[in-house]
């Protein structure tokens, strides 16, 4: 059955490849080729990451240097810099500060680390690593990107409207986000945010359905689930999580739209604002929080799991060792995927939710630390007694493991309801999630770009610049977020424009300046990457077919794979992807396409038996 299917796509692939020249538009813009779509997602993601990073630099200036004259920013920000007519000193608008925070969060979480990460690597690697010509539906895949693009355009436009973009923070809790009279950003900016996010969800679902269908149906012969690279396992589970949780965000957003524009009271009750009592009664803001975090928490893993998959692959390849505990890695990812759906209310311990519910969610939350711990230990053991080659991708992967551990550990504090009373909504939380989810996922994404760049563009990125980029980013990120824990333990609340109003929060002005300087330096360091990336696309050193001596299938394609990926038949898979440094083997890697029959010198006893079966199978097919 599956052989027949493969043959069919085989034929089609050939035809596509050989018989007609594609125009520029259908090749690079409205392309249905998963590799082009992946690059579209990647470049959009990079653009968004720069915008998101720039926003954080602006609000870090405000936080680090509250007395600074910001009038020099008014050419960029216009009326959002309030210039004192007497002194000429410019101050960032307090409402716009919140808009910056909101858009930074939205952009980074959704546009960079969801679309930019899954969109790039699920698209690029799933067909290449499972041995498929393309995605299950190339058309849906194309739609997925263009819905994302439309969503991006709308979100971007919201920066330029007179009331400014959404500013109720990325969690858009009503009533603040529901009432235009509560803040400027809750007017048209919020409407655009909701429309953009609705389109974004459509994009994510189109992509996710495709990833799942492709992984289930289109694996090449021999590529059983137990031979899948961990990257694919991670993308597969991520897509499932997304498919189950994003629709909940859509319904939450829909009810919010109804409350905003159609007079319903899903989230609104007993509100007196702007000098009048609103008629809404009986709604619950807590309902929104439940719905939001039902997506919001799995979203953390949607962001993180692809990165963990990518680094599993990279760490194994560059340690020249099999990933330690392949099955445990899959098991813990499954555990994380399931548990991620039952921990959402740990974001809500002090929202007035019933404390008993808090107890249950506290237990479930701390359980999720176990699979995460297993993953960390497995990474460490993979490095142990390896022969580690520090490619830039490898460095970023090691960086990810460090962030994952450092940021994960503070999760044990925050998952504890009793401790969360004090720590909730302080900088401790900011430091926690920026390390464990933000920086870790971001490093996974960068690692992936460095590692698969040769496959994407047929050229290598510059190694040295990669090293400099890594060390500046790695040190920079720790300089930003490590000291931030102190500010958090001291109780500084999030989303504060300045701390000068409170005696309690006036002790860390110097450290805040330091963090801001580190943030600016780290942002500038990313420009090294941007240069390296775009320069190498055109001028990079030509890549070889398998530059990292890796086992997975994508490296068996031509250096510049065309439409359909493999010019001939799709290769068959015989073994798992992690046969590195196998005792007795000629090389320190054995690609998945090498049958056990060809490697009698390195086969383990049970593999030797498989080698016998292989040749039988091959004969059977030949007879057929």
């Amino acid at each position, binding site marked *: 059955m599956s052989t027949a299917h493969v043959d069919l796509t085989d034929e089609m692939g050939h035809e596509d490849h050989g018989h007609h020249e594609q125009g520029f538009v259908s090749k690079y813009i409205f392309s249905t080729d998963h590799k082009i779509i992946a690059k579209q997602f990647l470049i959009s993601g990079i653009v968004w990451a720069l915008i998101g990073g720039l926003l954080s630099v602006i609000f870090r200036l405000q936080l680090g240097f509250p007395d600074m004259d910001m009038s020099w920013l008014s050419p960029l920000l216009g009326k959002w810099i309030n210039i004192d007519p007497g002194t000429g000193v410019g101050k960032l608008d307090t409402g716009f500060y919140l808009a910056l925070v909101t858009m930074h969060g939205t952009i980074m979480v959704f546009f960079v680390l969801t679309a930019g990460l899954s969109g790039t690597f699920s698209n690029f690697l799933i067909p290449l690593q499972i041995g498929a010509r393309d995605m299950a539906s190339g058309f849906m895949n194309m739609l997925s990107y263009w819905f994302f693009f439309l969503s991006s355009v709308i979100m971007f436009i919201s920066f330029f409207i007179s009331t400014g973009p959404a500013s109720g923070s990325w969690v858009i809790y009503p009533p603040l986000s529901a009432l235009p009279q509560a803040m400027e950003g809750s007017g048209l900016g919020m409407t655009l945010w909701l429309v953009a996010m609705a389109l974004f969800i459509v994009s994510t679902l189109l992509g996710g359905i495709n990833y799942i269908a492709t992984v289930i149906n289109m694996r090449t012969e021999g590529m059983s689930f137990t031979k899948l690279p961990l990257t694919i396992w991670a993308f597969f589970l991520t897509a499932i999580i997304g498919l189950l949780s994003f629709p909940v965000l859509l319904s939450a957003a829909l009810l919010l739209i109804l409350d905003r524009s159609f007079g319903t009271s899903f989230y609104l009750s007993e509100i007196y604002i702007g000098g009048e009592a609103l008629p809404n009664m009986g709604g619950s803001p807590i309902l929104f929080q439940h719905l939001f975090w039902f997506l919001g928490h799995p979203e953390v893993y949607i962001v993180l799991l692809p990165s963990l998959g990518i680094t599993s692959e990279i760490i194994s390849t560059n340690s020249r060792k099999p990933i330690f505990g392949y099955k445990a890695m899959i098991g813990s990812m499954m555990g994380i995927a399931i548990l991620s759906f039952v921990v959402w209310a740990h974001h809500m311990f002090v929202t007035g939710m019933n404390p008993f519910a808090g107890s249950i969610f506290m237990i479930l939350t701390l359980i999720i630390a176990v699979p995460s711990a297993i993953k960390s230990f497995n990474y460490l053991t993979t490095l142990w007694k390896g022969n580690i080659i520090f490619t830039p991708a490898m460095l970023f992967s090691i960086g990810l493991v460090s962030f994952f551990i*450092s940021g994960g550990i503070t999760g044990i504090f925050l998952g504890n309801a009793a401790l969360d009373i004090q720590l*909730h909504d302080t900088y401790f939380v900011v430091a926690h999630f920026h390390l464990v989810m933000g920086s870790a996922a971001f490093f996974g994404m960068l690692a992936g770009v460095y590692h698969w760049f040769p496959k994407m563009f047929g050229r290598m990125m510059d190694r040295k610049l990669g090293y400099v980029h890594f060390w500046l980013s790695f040190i920079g990120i720790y300089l930003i977020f490590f000291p931030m824990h102190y500010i958090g333990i001291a109780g500084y609340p999030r989303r504060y424009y300045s701390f000068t109003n409170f005696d309690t929060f006036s002790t860390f002005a110097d450290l805040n300046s330091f963090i801001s300087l580190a943030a600016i330096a780290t942002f500038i360091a990313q420009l090294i990457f941007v240069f390296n990336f775009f320069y190498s696309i055109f001028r990079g050193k030509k890549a070889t077919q398998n530059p990292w001596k890796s086992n997975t299938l994508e490296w068996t394609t031509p250096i510049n794979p065309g439409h359909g990926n493999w010019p001939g038949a799709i290769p068959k898979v015989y073994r798992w992807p992690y046969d590195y440094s196998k005792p007795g083997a000629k090389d320190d890697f054995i690609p998945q396409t090498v049958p056990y029959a060809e490697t009698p010198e390195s086969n383990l006893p049970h593999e030797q038996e498989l080698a016998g079966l292989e040749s039988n199978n091959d004969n059977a097919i030949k007879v057929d």
Partner: protein
Amino acid sequence: MQNLLIGASVVVALLVLFMVYKLATLIHVAKGSKTDEDAGSNTVNGYLMLAFLIIGGIAATWSAMSYFDLYNIPVASEHGVKTDKMFWVTMLITGLAFVITNVLLFYFAFRYRYNKNNTATYYPDNSKLEMAWTVIPAVVLTILIGYGLKLWNNITDVAPKEAEVIEIMGAQFAWRVRYPGADNKLGKYDYRKIDDSNAFGMDLSDKNSHDDFVPREIHFPVNKPVLLKIRARDVLHSVYMPHFRVKMDAVPGMPTQFWFVPKKTTEDMRKETGNPDFNYELACAEICGKGHFSMRMLIVVDTPEEYEAWKKKQKTWLAQNPEYLAQVPEELKEVAMLSAGIENNESNDSSL
């Protein structure tokens, strides 16, 4: 400023590190072939891993110690002492895990850096080892959960009957508090009755509201349980009293509460911190709009005597806004004037 200098010197150190690295690679380039160059970079990166571990470790320890007094803010509530203890116990356990795992990570990276004479060890799994690091974190976490749950259940348990009940209401962008007055009962409210003066929407047909008072700052008695009745008027807010380790959202349409026992008076804290200007503060911890960062209210913790005296001194809200007597039903008016302390001061005193 001193810290800024330290920060600047760290940046300089980074630059130096970068220069050294650049120099090292240049030397390797000068020395010979391309493969050597790669091997050279690999060694440099291996040593940088080690250097990061050592320098990072020192910097983390040093900063954690030198900032300790700044981030370990004094605690002034009964449950806060316990949660602080739990915080540091958790810090000890997780800190240990943090140090061990990070040391292993960077040490392994350094120790097992590429060497062309070495081969990596084929070591795909070990079920005993994996079982061990599944069970150990599970056991440790179970202990932490048990400890945490006990604490959480105590903190969120029903408030003692003798607790002082105080209402806190968040509104853009100020807090307001209401005390129940002499009868120790807060009057009913209805958000539709809110107007410029009646910020709480007090329902004056309820006689319990007549003696309620609305002061400009919060007072708590020391060593007595305080039950905060929390609500919000417009959007979400969050009652946050850092020194008491208290945080609870204020939700429009859904009253919430939090009870705790203040253990130190403002005077005690002034002595303890050596800061004669020390004040307890109430802040907002849930984004509520452009003035979110400015929702400050002063808290004073009094001795029981001072507290009672302060309460006696407060004028009832109705007495401050006598025009609202019109909203009081006819049959309650006389009692209302009595309990609100309007016109006849002697009778008011006797009612206390």
